[in-house]
């Protein structure tokens, strides 16, 4: 019975999975900046609204934001293509190792970047270290109905599959992991693999232009893998070597 005392052997084989599992392709050429993803994300993930003053002070809680810049001056002015920026789910995420309590960890099984809300102590180092600035912090008790009576009825809308965060907790896009888990569970109960296109995050689901494609990047036949293989594709701040899982297809007249 000596084997009973054998400690389980844990190996870190993430290095072998560079392709990743889940990925996203965002086509900036057809993204119309309509913000449907922003609203859908907020509704799906119980993201609180922060009010005018805080919103204007850089405390919005959006997990996805749409960036745009200007080029030139009138009349030759041009808006750069809308760029939805969300957590890039880096394979080598700079946000992860800096957390002192493992609140920001890598999910080896899904190869995405996790934020474990209840473990977070609020040092905000991860947010500092995120080159994409996609982490948002609960600056106040935005979800506490005792402090915000207007929430009493609004909270009926909360998604029971997603934790409601309170003050002092960092959060970020999860690739709608609750949907991934749900689909995986359904597939498992039906004894089959997850089908391509079965997992749809809220943003991709809402996107009227279908600019967001989501799926398995380790499957070369998936829609997302095919979409990513184009000369228009690039990763944001690729030079940092973070191996992001979101591919942007350039906007404008680039082929």
């Amino acid at each position, binding site marked *: 019975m000596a084997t009973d005392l054998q400690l389980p052997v844990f190996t870190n084989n993430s290095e072998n999975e560079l392709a990743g599992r889940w990925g996203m392709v965002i086509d900036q050429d057809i993204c119309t900046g309509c913000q449907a993803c922003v609203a859908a994300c907020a509704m799906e993930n119980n993201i609180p609204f922060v009010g005018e003053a805080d919103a204007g002070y850089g405390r919005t809680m959006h997990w996805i934001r749409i960036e745009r810049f200007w080029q030139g001056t009138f009349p030759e002015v041009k808006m750069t293509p809308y760029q939805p920026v969300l957590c890039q789910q880096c394979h080598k995420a700079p946000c992860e190792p800096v957390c002192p309590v493992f609140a920001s960890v890598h999910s080896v099984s899904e190869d995405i970047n996790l934020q474990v809300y209840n*473990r977070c102590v609020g040092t905000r180092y991860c947010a500092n270290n995120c080159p994409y600035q996609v982490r948002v912090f609960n600056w106040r008790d935005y979800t506490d109905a005792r402090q915000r009576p207007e929430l009493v009825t*609004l909270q009926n809308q*909360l998604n029971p599959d997603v934790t409601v965060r309170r003050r002092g907790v960092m959060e970020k896009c999860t690739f709608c992991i609750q949907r991934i888990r749900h689909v995986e569970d359904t597939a498992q109960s039906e004894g089959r693999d997850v089908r391509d296109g079965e997992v749809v995050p809220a943003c991709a689901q809402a996107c009227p232009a279908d600019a967001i494609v989501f799926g398995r990047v380790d499957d070369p036949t998936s829609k997302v893998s095919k979409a990513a293989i184009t000369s228009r594709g690039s990763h944001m701040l690729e030079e940092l070597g973070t191996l992001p899982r979101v591919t942007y297809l350039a906007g404008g007249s680039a082929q």
Partner: protein
Amino acid sequence: MSQQISRRDFLKLAGVGAATTAVLTGCGPASRYVTRAPYIKMPEYTYNGLSTFYATTCRECSAGCGLVIRTMQGRAIKVEGNPDHPVNLGKTCARGQATLHGLYNPDRITDPIQRVARGSEGGTKMDWDAAIGIVADALSKNKPDEIAFLVGMAPDHLFDLVADLAKTIGAPAPVRYGALGMFEARTTLVKAAEETFGQTGLPFFDIGGADLVISFGANFLETWLSPVAQTREFSKMRRGQKNKRGYLVQFESRMSQTGAKADEWIPITPGTEAMVALAIGRLIVEARGLALPPAFANVDVNGVVEASGVTLDALNRVAGLFSLYDRPLVIPGGGALGLSNGLQTAEAALALNALAGNFGKDGGVFISPTNPLADQYHRPASGREMQDFIQRMVDGKIKVLFVHGVNPLFELPKKLGFGGATKYVPQIISFATFPDETAMEADYVFPDHHGLESWGYQKIATGSASSVLSGAQPVIVPFFNTKSTVDVLLAAAQKAGGALASAFPFKDEVEFMDSKLASLLNVDGFFSAPEINTFAAYFQQYGGWWKTTDNRIAPSSADVLNRSFKADAAQFDGQGDFFFVPFVSPILGEAGANKPWLQEVPDPTTTIMWNTWVEINPATADKLGIEDNDVVRVVSDYGEVEVSVYKYPAIRPDTIAMPFGQGHTAYGQFAQGRGANPADLFGPSVNEAGDLAFGSLKVRIEKTNKKRQLSRLEGVLGVYGFDSK
């Protein structure tokens, strides 16, 4: 972790709440104190942890997108698009997503109330029997022609009922109105179609089939007609074609969200769209070396260049695009139509389409499919019709006014005088769900359910190639003590008795709907059923009924080019220095201001949240000595508003722009007292089609020396440089 009293008391004693439990249990409660109040009476089938999905129709605008609402334990959790629905194919816009914040809005009217005095907060709560009695009295005790119905663009089953009701008692037909309809200038489009092809109906622009789209002010990606469908079609146009990338050219004076997506954004003097369109037509014809058709004969290209501010090169380039691309499409719309010469613009654009020969072809112009219930297209009332309506009020010809689904006090320009006219109406009954401005001015408010608590159907005006009747059903039991307006009217009809009672023998709303749906039995659609119960079940299950064929009508292009088109200079009211471009906030729309998450969704072009701004070209602002966030007074001949400045790089220096959607004086805590309403500046002038010429204004700007910070998502330092604050 339970709801136990002793534990809660203990925590109170401990006095440090969350911290203590965290330490005691060793796990930090991220949310333990968010109480999800139990939904009191759950049907047996909702008691497990599984979600239930209901198909229904979005009511945030009249486009009628199909939704599937995820509910869990009797609460609506998430809005998802209905993938089968021909209008949106499973997609939604931000407003659709936020409809849940309307459903669970803390400011909803919870009970039928009788106002103590118009404009006062609150009122006496009533029970529904008394409320129905009042409606019945109003219907039966007034002379039929003194009863007026003012209803919104959705839902259509209510409109059908009200129309039938009015017909039965002999009252004037109900008036439909919505600010979106006004900004879309639907009447103008319909009129232009009628005049150009001689066919009535709303033109349909097949963006998805085109490979070149030239838009004259049409903000088709934002709020115009059926934005979700058009965005989908745009995406198809841009990237959906093999080996070809669709090209979009936008003529407008202020870069809209649609303009931002354009490959070429060409700033143009407001009011010169018609002549530019005709000039392009002429250049195309000349380039092709054809005989000049009468349509383009009257235009003087050099004059156009001078008036419009568009260079001849640019005109030639755009004209050249017509031969580069196979399926060009020209869309007139939005702000370009809301000018005194709007009808001319629409017609000139249609003439260009005729020149491109795309009528009834893929990527061309159609007439939208007629709706499955096969009655005529109920467009919103034009500005002129609303003026007539208000005149009737002022003349005392209306003794009782029923208002549903529209907020005329906010959505109609102040200058039209609806606010002043209400005092000539002895009885106003509002069916508003939210305490909007009109509901505040009503004598009675008999709140209707929220759209997600209601039955109903919506006839899809445009956006789908096939004819669609979109179905709505309640996804949760009503959250408050509200009652469906259809039910109220039906019950009132019964109570009123007589002809009214016998004309509407329906037990409830569903029975009434079934009577309407009965005409679809055995009609060829994507489903059919021999009897109404099965049909209605499918109807609710799939979220509507639609045909599987292309029901768009090809307009005849026969004589279009042989007609002569005018392109007059637009008339502008006022002596100000600036053209004024009002546009509907793409996020808030006409009625989104009370939804906190919509308030916090940034505007696509300026990234501003929670407020109203005025866009001024930076060069102009510098000349005037105006900085970002300075409050300026925008003054027209008809009114003035105070609003913060946003230095917007993509607007003509002689133009300023303001979004519509905020500036509520009521409408709940999230909307009230926030921002300004550009409609306060509008005058009464209308275009040839009768639509309000809301853009025909010249305004001036006065400094106020006040500052009010605008909340922006963008970091000003990074987007506009270190000098900006």
